[in-house]
């Protein structure tokens, strides 16, 4: 059976070159970077090389590349950034600002911090998912100690005006963290230019391995470690360094940096063509996220009148792999908070599909995707009470205005 991955945001294969770079560190250069003997040397050097490569990807080269703390996941990087900063800066205030469409690894921490007595403001977004810098400015109080707003959203693809948001933060002398896990490797990042204070990224979003991520921390920002113990990673993250994974992160960062423009342009061209094809062939589709300012590989649509898990299952049977923001596909059985924040009516959130492309995606697959999604949508609409109600009402007013 033909199979087409349209869920590269969930997972992507590790690049062959990246894997080849990693392999020797499992067996040959297996030493512990902290070791005082020859076995520690190559791994230790490899760690620093990886730091430089990640630095290059985010524009930290020459300035602050040593301020890159390796973690095991973007979730961990986000937890280190937020909990770590507030733990070290409690005396300065108790207010944190973020947005309503952050990843759960930001939002769920904030809930915990709220229980501990912190005040949290979650900025709303407009119907395209954009945070308004003026609303950020208005939300700042003299108690605000941290602002955390993502660079881009993994689900709807919307890219935030981070430069403006950071300016607002810095005018008020408040440190700014950005979760760039969905953005890194796909759009240019430049910590020198934006002046961002902390930035999270993860290797598995740009063809590196799972289990390797990083938090950039600008010099002067005080954090407390989440994982305490040895003084690896400047004392900010204890535990034997996962050298092979970090080498993989470095190599993936190097490749992503090298091919960023080419990769993004090619992928966004396919994405645009797929979008055009779907909207042409299938009635009652709805685009979620920003029409222009979005990640090159991201397409998010709602298929009116049907539910996402059923779509996902039917597409899976046709070898097409997607994800959905429906409540039935979430482990917590709640429909996407991101789609909710856009003001999308529940039935559209339930019928949302995230189609995310990768460098392996091909234009040639578009007809197959369009045809199958059309069939599947027709089939499920045919058994949908909402669709029959719509037919009866004979009206076709768009559900979102």
């Amino acid at each position, binding site marked *: 059976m033909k199979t087409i991955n349209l869920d590269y945001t969930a997972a992507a294969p590790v690049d062959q070159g990246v894997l080849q770079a990693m392999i020797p560190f499992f067996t040959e250069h297996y030493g512990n970077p902290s070791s005082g003997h020859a076995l520690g040397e190559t791994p230790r050097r490899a760690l620093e090389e990886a730091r430089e490569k990640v630095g290059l990807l985010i524009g930290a080269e020459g300035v602050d590349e040593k301020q890159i703390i390796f973690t095991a996941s973007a979730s961990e990087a986000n937890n280190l950034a937020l909990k770590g900063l507030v733990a070290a800066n409690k005396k300065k205030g108790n207010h944190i600002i973020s947005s309503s469409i952050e990843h759960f690894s930001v939002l769920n921490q904030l809930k915990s911090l709220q229980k501990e007595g912190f005040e949290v403001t979650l900025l709303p977004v407009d119907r395209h998912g954009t945070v308004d810098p003026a609303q950020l400015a208005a939300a700042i109080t003299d108690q605000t100690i941290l602002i955390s707003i993502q660079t881009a959203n993994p689900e709807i693809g919307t890219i935030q005006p981070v430069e403006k948001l950071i300016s607002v933060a810095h005018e008020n002398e408040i440190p700014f963290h950005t979760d760039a896990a969905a953005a890194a490797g796909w759009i240019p990042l430049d910590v020198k230019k934006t002046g961002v204070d902390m930035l999270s990224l993860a290797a598995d979003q740009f063809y590196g391995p799972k289990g390797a991520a990083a938090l950039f921390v600008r010099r002067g920002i005080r954090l407390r470690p989440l994982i305490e113990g040895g003084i690896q990673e400047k004392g900010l993250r204890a535990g034997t360094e996962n050298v092979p994974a970090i080498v993989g992160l470095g190599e993936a960062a190097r490749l992503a940096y090298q091919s960023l423009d080419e990769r993004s342009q090619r992928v966004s061209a396919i994405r645009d063509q797929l979008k055009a094809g779907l909207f042409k062939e299938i009635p009652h589709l709805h685009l979620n996220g920003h029409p222009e300012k979005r990640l090159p590989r991201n397409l998010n649509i709602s298929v009116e009148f049907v*539910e996402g898990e*059923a779509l996902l*299952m039917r597409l*899976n049977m046709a070898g097409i792999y997607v994800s959905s923001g429906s409540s*039935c596909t979430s482990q917590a*059985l709640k429909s996407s908070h991101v789609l909710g924040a856009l003001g999308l009516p529940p039935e559209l959130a339930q019928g949302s599909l995230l189609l995310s492309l990768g460098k392996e995606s091909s234009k040639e697959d578009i007809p197959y995707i369009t045809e199958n999604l059309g069939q599947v949508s027709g089939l499920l609409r045919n*058994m*949908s*009470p909402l669709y029959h109600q719509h037919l009866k009402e004979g009206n076709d007013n768009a559900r979102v205005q």
Partner: protein
Amino acid sequence: MPEYSEKVMEHFTNPRNIGEVSEPDGIGEVGNPVCGDMMKFTIKVKDNRIEDVKYFTFGCGAAIAVSSMVSEMAKGKTLEEALKITNKQVAEELGGLPGNKMHCSNLGADALHKAITDYMEKQKVEAGSSS
């Protein structure tokens, strides 16, 4: 995708009795798009038996399979028998449902029962108006 049983997958892939019976004797609607599942059962009753049953379902794989299974289980049963169909039985007939999908099986029997009580109430009203 949760680990659905073969039976669930079979009903999801080939759902039976989709649609609306013409001139339904009873209609049962449950759920709403917020919770992710919605079912509308329509029944045709003859001689106190469910002569025909059809449904429209908006929902996940489990919701569709449950609807299909309920329709099969109900068809031909007397109203009393059909009212005794429990959600647990539906799930069992489907070879079990993943824990977090049990609420979908709840909906199925509920919608059927609603259609039956709708029919019964209409009967009462008719009986009342004819008395």
